[in-house]
Each structure stands twice: as C-alpha cells, then as structure tokens.
C-alpha cells in the first residue's frame, strides 16, 4: 500500500438548486481511501451518502453542483476535469454499482453484449477478446453456465443474478475504485448474504478500493474495514470497523446501534432505543452540531454554536465530530426494563389455520398447454394465540402476503379452514363480512407511500375509519381522532396534515392509528417497517409491541427480517414456497434444532459485528419457479442438508417436538440438533 491515498476528498461542498435557491447538502466533507481498502458509509436516508458517491463520479445531474473543495483521485482533482477526461475515468478507473440492478441493465440487449461493451469501449479490445474477458468475469462472480447467461436478457435473470452481472460489469474494467450504493437493499436475505460474500472475495482478489454505501450496519460490517457515519451531509464519526462497533463514540452512531434489532435481542431483555425525531431537511441547518436537535446529550451553547469538526481520538485513526466526546460515558446505561410477563398458557387460539391452500391459475396460453398453477399456499397449519405476537417470516414469494390477504378477506381460500375465534373466515371475502367481524380484524400495510390516500387529511382517514368501525357522533369521532393520534405518539395537530407533509414513519403511525379505530382483536401487519430507516423502524416496532401489550390484541407480524422477528415475536412461523417449514415459540425456533431453511436464513442475517465471520451457509440458486417445485420437500432444490431422493419425492413429515414446536423435515430432530449445536 502506498502512502498517498487513492481517493482524497478535502472540504467537499455540494449544493442543489431548488425553487427556494441554492441549498447546501454537503457542507464540507473530508474523506480518504487507500488503494485496496474498503470504506463503508452509513446513515439514515437523506444524510447525503448517495450525494457523496455521485459527486465523486461528477454525476450530480443538472440541479447539483460542487461549490467548493477538491476530490483528489490518483493525483488528479476530479472537480476540475472536463467531460472528455472524465470519460476516461468513469467506468474504467471508477465504477459504480447502483441499488436497482434492473435500472442499470439495458432490457433490450443480452447481458453478454452489455458486458463486452465495457472492454471494447475502454480498452479498445476486439470482440473476441472482449468475449473471453466477459466469460472469465462471469465465472468470477460465480454464475453457473456463463455461456448461457451471456445470451440471456436481463428479465430472464433473478434479482441476485442481475446484481452479479452489474458487479461483473463494474469490475471487468479492473477499476481502482468501486462505488457500491446500497447494492443489496432490494435482495432477499439469503441472496444478500451470497452477494456480500462475493464482494468480500472479489475485493481481496482485485485489490480495488471499495466505497460501500448502506443504511444497514450489518452489511457494512461484513464487507468493509473502515466505517464512516454520516449525518445531514457531514461525517460525524470514522473508525476502523472493529472499533466502530466495539467503541462507538458519537451519540448518533451509538443511537444507530441501539436501535438496530439483532438476533441476540428480544423485547424483554434488550429493548430497542429509537433515536427521537427525524432527519431535518438541509434548509433548516443552524450553527453547531447537526445532530443537536435529536441528541440526548446536547448542551446548549457548546453544541449549538460554531463549527464542530472531526477530531482524532486515540491512535488508530478514530475520528469523531462531537465536542462532548470526552465527557460522555463510553456505553450509555440501559434503562432497566420490567419484563412484562407473557402469558404462556395456551388458551384456544385466536386464529387457527388448518390445511389452507391457495393457488393462482396463470392465464391460458393461446397455443399449447396451460402452464402449471402457481402454488401460493400449500396445506398450511398455523395457530395465533390470544394476546401474543405471531411472526411469519420467509423470503419473497413464500406466500406470507397471500396468507395476510386471505385473513383480511382480500383473497379467499381455495381449500382448508381459517377460523377467527371459532368463526370460519377463510372463504368470506371482506364484503361478505359483518361489521363486527371487520372491526375485529384490521391490517397495517407495507408501503408508507401508498397506505394513506394522498387526497385525504390524516384526520379524515382516521375519522372515516372510526365512523365505519366504531360509530359515534361527529364530536365523539373528533375526540377519537385526537386520542388515537396520542396512542401512536403523534400530536393532535397532525390531523390537519396531508400524507405528503409526513415522513415515512409518521405515515406508518397514522396507518396504525387507522387500524386501531375499531379497537380490533387482531392486527395484521404486513412488513410494516421494511421501507423505513433503522431509527424509525425501532420506534414503530416498539409502538406495535406496546399496543399489542396494552390493548391485549393479537398481532400477526409478517416480515422478511429475522432480527426484527426475534425481537418482537412470541411465536414464529417460517414459510418457504407456500408451506410452513417450522413453527414454534420464538425461543425454540431460534435455537437448534432448526429446519435447514431456518438455519440458512439465520446464518444469512447480516450481523453488525465484524468478528462474526462469514456466513456459514450460503444458499445456491434461486427460489424455484412454479413448474420446478419438487413433489417432495419444496426446499429440496437448495437444501444444504439434503439426504437423498426421498427429499425430492416424498413430502416431509411434520415432527412435533416439545412446546408445540413443529419442523417439517425428513431428518429426525435429534440429528438436526446434533449437527446444528454450536461446537
């Protein structure tokens, strides 16, 4: 490693032109990155992480402008280069991988041609040589059958395969710097683990420097050796990855770690501590620390005046921008928690699902035979106990949302029984349900941007729900709106706002208030936090937990995030391709014996601990398509513990263990336990 850094950003200031005039979003950033090193940039959305990446690429668009500072790269200042010189650097010396691989690939060109374009354009290779390099690169990103992949179009590949192609495209020119902007955010957890593994490995082999942008501290810990935490356009802390996670010093960094659910946390022992408030817009920037308005250690005067710069502490290059860094105790004392005793007595379940199946008939083709029906749910057995939280986890396409839709009456079951407190609702669409039944079961949806009608005020949305589900006079409803807003910890003035004046977390709170209007017995929450920032996510999770506990409702929590599930749930159902692979209380499901799929999911969860090592199990391939599902165990095609043909041909038996724990696997539970127990 040479002494001069490869990338040396000094005093970088970036502004965007807006209707209200020029707005500085990065007030002054210092950053350096040595050859072969990997720096992670983390922070909530709106903190300027992507803006930094785009500024380095000099790709800020028409509204963005670098107003001061220099970006030294390889001895040149990128801020002063003209378009022609930039072209010789972009793609060739600095390559970028974006979040959405589908948007980075040309849909009308085979991926092979797109890969070959890079060496042809940058190195003047002939087609034959470019083809060889493309094939070699595809082998390096571990795509099976590269010759066939070369001929495919982007839509014929899965999300994980697409992201591998994009990474191959970035690396084929052997860039000195690779910028990755949330490269795994849209991917399922097992695919994410495989892609991160690949990035780690390629980084070692190609000696490219990596700037890795993510909101997920866990993924950063897996790939990087240094981490920078950004808040409102400023770097507030930078340190080696081990030190950042073991000894975070800035209150914001500590806040981020405190609100991150991990596999080791549950609601009784280690509650999440959300960061209060939200990222303020760049327009209201005052003097002093940008984090002051949300910081619990703020001291008016010192924290809110002047300019607070990154200052080194210790010898290992740990830098923090906080004036009180030496006064603050290293680890904040956790408030002691009075663990609410959860009822373990199993009364009659609130929701019982028995033999539930649902499949979608694909459109008949004009010519030829019809395609196989898509099996969304196959013979599902589940119970949701009263006053407890049942989490349903699985990757996309596992049938968890279909299950929620059947419970909500938006779809109806094809076979089997779904009972709510003894009443069969499986084949009862929502229009056919009585008002009392509608009141008893309400839903919180996934997408904060589409859960509220943009044309209606918050007050109208809640008051309308009250009118339909609870009744009451106009005055009673107005009081009810204020009360429900209080329950979800929003001020009553919010009632006059429209959704576009709310943040994502606030929208989700309003959606929860709306669902609570009729004081339901069951609340179904379909991925309610997956679109939110970690700090906001923590607050919503706590809110759901509190509501579940104080109102005595049954919460059905659907999620793909095992860490969140571990934290919030009392019972867990793990689903794969429409079947329940494992079911039981959260303690039992998260401890061996596991179903092999649960085991793979658990080892794929990115852990915000750099010492956690690599994923033990990396699943190959993708979830099989509708016509490739084996007759036996649906997981047989990817299972690392496959025992033989019996897995392909015979549906696995459901093994019933202690405490209602059920595993659907051919391998006896004792053998699974022996193989999975940590050595």
């Amino acid at each position, binding site marked *: 490693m040479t002494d001069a850094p490869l990338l040396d950003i000094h005093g970088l200031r970036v502004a965007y032109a807006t209707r209200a005039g020029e707005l500085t979003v990065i007030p002054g950033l210092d950053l350096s990155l040595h050859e072969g090193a990997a720096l992670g940039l983390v922070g909530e959305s709106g903190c300027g992480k992507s803006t930094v990446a785009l500024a380095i690429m000099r790709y800020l668009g028409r509204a963005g402008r670098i107003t001061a500072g220099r970006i030294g790269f390889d001895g040149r200042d990128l801020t002063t280069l003209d378009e022609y010189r930039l072209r010789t650097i972009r793609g060739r010396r600095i390559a970028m991988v974006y979040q959405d691989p589908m948007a980075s690939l040309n849909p009308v060109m085979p991926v092979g041609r797109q890969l070959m374009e890079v060496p042809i354009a940058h190195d003047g290779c002939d087609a034959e040589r470019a083809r060889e390099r493309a094939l070699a690169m595809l082998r390096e990103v571990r795509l099976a059958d590269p010759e066939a992949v070369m001929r495919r179009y982007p839509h014929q590949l899965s999300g994980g395969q697409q992201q591998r192609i994009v990474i191959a495209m970035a690396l084929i020119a052997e860039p000195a710097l690779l910028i990755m902007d949330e490269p795994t955010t849209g991917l399922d957890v097992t695919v994410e683990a495989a892609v991160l593994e690949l990035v780690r490995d390629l980084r070692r082999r190609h000696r490219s420097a990596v700037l890795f942008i993510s909101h997920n501290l866990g993924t950063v810990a897996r790939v990087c050796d240094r981490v920078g935490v950004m808040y409102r356009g400023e770097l507030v802390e930078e340190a080696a990855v081990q030190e950042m996670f073991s000894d975070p010093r800035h209150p914001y960094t500590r806040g981020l770690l405190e609100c991150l659910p991990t596999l080791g946390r549950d609601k009784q022992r280690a509650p999440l501590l959300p960061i209060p408030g939200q990222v303020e817009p760049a327009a209201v920037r005052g003097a002093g620390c940008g984090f002051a308005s949300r910081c619990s250690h703020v001291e008016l005067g010192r924290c809110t005046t002047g300019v607070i710069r990154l200052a080194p502490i210790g010898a290992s290059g740990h830098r923090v921008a906080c004036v009180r860094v030496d006064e603050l105790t290293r680890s904040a004392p956790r408030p002691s928690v009075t663990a609410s005793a959860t009822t373990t007595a199993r009364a009659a379940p609130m929701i019982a699902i028995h033999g539930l199946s649902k499949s979608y008939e694909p459109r008949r083709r004009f010519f030829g035979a019809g395609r196989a029906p898509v099996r969304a749910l196959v013979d599902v057995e589940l119970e949701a106990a009263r006053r407890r939280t049942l989490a349903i986890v699985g990757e996309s396409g596992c049938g968890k949302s279909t299950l929620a839709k059947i419970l909500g009456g*938006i779809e109806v079951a094809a076979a089997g029984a779904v009972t709510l407190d003894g009443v069969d609702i499986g084949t009862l669409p929502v229009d056919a349900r009585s008002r009392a039944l*509608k009141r008893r079961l*309400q839903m919180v*949806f*996934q997408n904060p941007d589409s859960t509220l*009608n943009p044309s209606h005020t918050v007050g109208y949305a809640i008051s309308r729900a009250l009118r339909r589900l609870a009744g009451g006079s106009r005055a009673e409803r107005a009081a009810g709106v204020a009360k429900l807003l209080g329950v979800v910890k929003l001020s009553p003035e919010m009632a006059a706002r429209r959704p576009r004046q709310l943040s994502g977390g606030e929208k989700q709170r309003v959606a929860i208030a709306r669902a609570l209007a009729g004081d339901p017995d069951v609340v179904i929450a379909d991925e309610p936090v997956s679109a939110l920032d970690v700090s906001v996510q923590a607050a919503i999770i706590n809110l759901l937990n509190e509501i579940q506990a104080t109102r005595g409702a049954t919460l059905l929590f659907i999620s793909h995030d095992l860490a969140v599930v571990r934290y919030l749930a009392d019972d867990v159902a793990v689903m794969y391709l429409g079947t329940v692979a494992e079911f039981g209380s959260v303690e039992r499901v998260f401890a061996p014996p596991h179903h092999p799929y649960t085991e793979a999911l658990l080892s794929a969860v990115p852990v915000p601990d750099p010492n956690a090592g690599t994923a033990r199990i990396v699943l190959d391939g993708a979830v099989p398509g509708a016509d490739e599902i084996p007759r036996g165990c649906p997981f047989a095609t990817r299972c690392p513990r496959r025992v033989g043909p019996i897995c392909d041909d015979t549906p696995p038996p459901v093994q019933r263990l202690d405490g209602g724990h059920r595993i659907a696997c051919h391998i006896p539970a004792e053998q699974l336990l022996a193989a999975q127990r940590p050595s």
Partner: protein
Amino acid sequence: MLPRVLRGGAWRRVALVGDSAPATVGVAIILAWVMLALLAPLIAPYPPNASDLSALAHATPSRTHWLGTDHLGRDLLSRILWGARPVLVIAPLAVLGAAAFGSLLGLVAGYRGGWIGLVITRACDIVLSFPVIILYMIILAHFGSSAWNIIAVLTLTKAPIIARIVRGMTLDLREREYVAAAKMRGESSLYIMLVEILPNARGPLFVDMCLRTGYNVIIIGVLGFLGIGLPPPDPDWGGMVKDTYGMMMVWPHMALVPCAAISSLVVGFNLLAVGLRELGLRD
C-alpha cells in the same frame, strides 16, 4: 393577513399557475377572452347583426370599423366579441359533461373490470373509431342544431377519451393499499371509486380537460363552417368563416379575423394544459 379563504390549499394551488410561464400566458389569453365576452354589450361598437351598407364599399379595417366589416356590412369586431360568448359557454360545458360522464364510465370499467368493464371499453372504442364529423352531421341534422344539442353531441363523443384515461389510472390506483384499507373497513364501491380513487386521478384529468376544451373550440368552429353550428344570424366564429371564405381573394380579413380568434383561444387552452402538466410533474 389574507382572508381565510385565500390562505386555503385551493388558493395556493391556483396561485401555483404563476410558477409556469406557459400556464401564465395561457390563463392570460383565456381570461382576456372571457373578459371581452362578458363586456361585449358594453364595449362592442355596433350591434352584432346591424348592417352598415355604406361601409360595404370599404370593407377593410378603417377608423369606423377597426377590424373591417363582413360581406353584409356588419362590424367584424362586434361580431367577434359577441361570437366569443357561445364558444366560451359551450366548449367548457361540453368538457364538464364529458368529464363527468367519462369519469364515471372509466371508474366503473377500471374498478369493476370483468364483463362490465369489457362492455364499457368496447363501446368507447366503437364511438372513438367512428368518423366523428359524420356522426355530428347525422345527429345534428336529425335533432336540429342548438346550443344544447351541440353540448350533448360533444359530451357523447369526448366522454370515451376521458373514460379511457380514467380507466387506465383506476387500474393502477385500485391496487393501492389505501383502497385495500377502505375495503377492510367496509366501504361501498361507489365510495371507493368517488372518494378514494377519483381525487387521485385529477391531475392528468385536469390537463386533459384543458386540451379537450381547446379541441372543442375547434369543433364548434368546424360545425359552424359546415353550416350545422349555431343558427344564424347571431355571430358564430365558424359560421363567419363559412360565409366569407369564398371572398378570400378580395377581402381576406373577413375570414382571417374569426380564424385568428379561434386559434388564439385554442392556443390559450393548450398552453394552460402544457403548464399544468409541467406543474404536475414537478410535485
């Protein structure tokens, strides 16, 4: 402090028009025509149907007749001003009718789908595939030409276009989670269509209504030109062109002045549509 009404969201949204140059120019042109039409009884120098036979010898623009006279010696300026009145009533009313009728069809076709949706879309396609001019001639010849009949014909032929736009938006909007939430609290289909879906389709709908108003101005002109517009002798821009285009070689101004009036009004509505689209994209 502004009065309460002016501080409301609606007023602020109207004031946004000032942010777009095309929208501002468009609104200015339209408002100018509205003012001229309203004030026609006060500012028109002559009664619109009064012939000044002495002026016929010098039909071209002069100090007494600023825009000249037509072939019967009627003052063109007065006729243009009075002629703006029926256009500015018929074109917007017909668009409102088409928007109301078309939105309803589009909402039902998009939200209910199934065979009802199929019947509605096919019916719309049939109307749209018909040569409209011939349709106008048949209907107006049969029922007679009056302002109400013209509005009815325009409503009927423009509604399918609006229906298609609203149906497309409904197909997208009905999948939103707020619609699912409305279903889960037991709202009726009518409520969901009118209160949950329609307000969110209004942006593209307003843009299209502006464009449609401009096109209606042209069609009213065409009907007048074909002799099936408003009955004479009251001034009608299209009719004025019909009466005088044969004299184009001698007195071009007689046909060109009403043509210019039609064009300027159409351009006004088009500019407003362009501006509204621009503003819609920015939000």
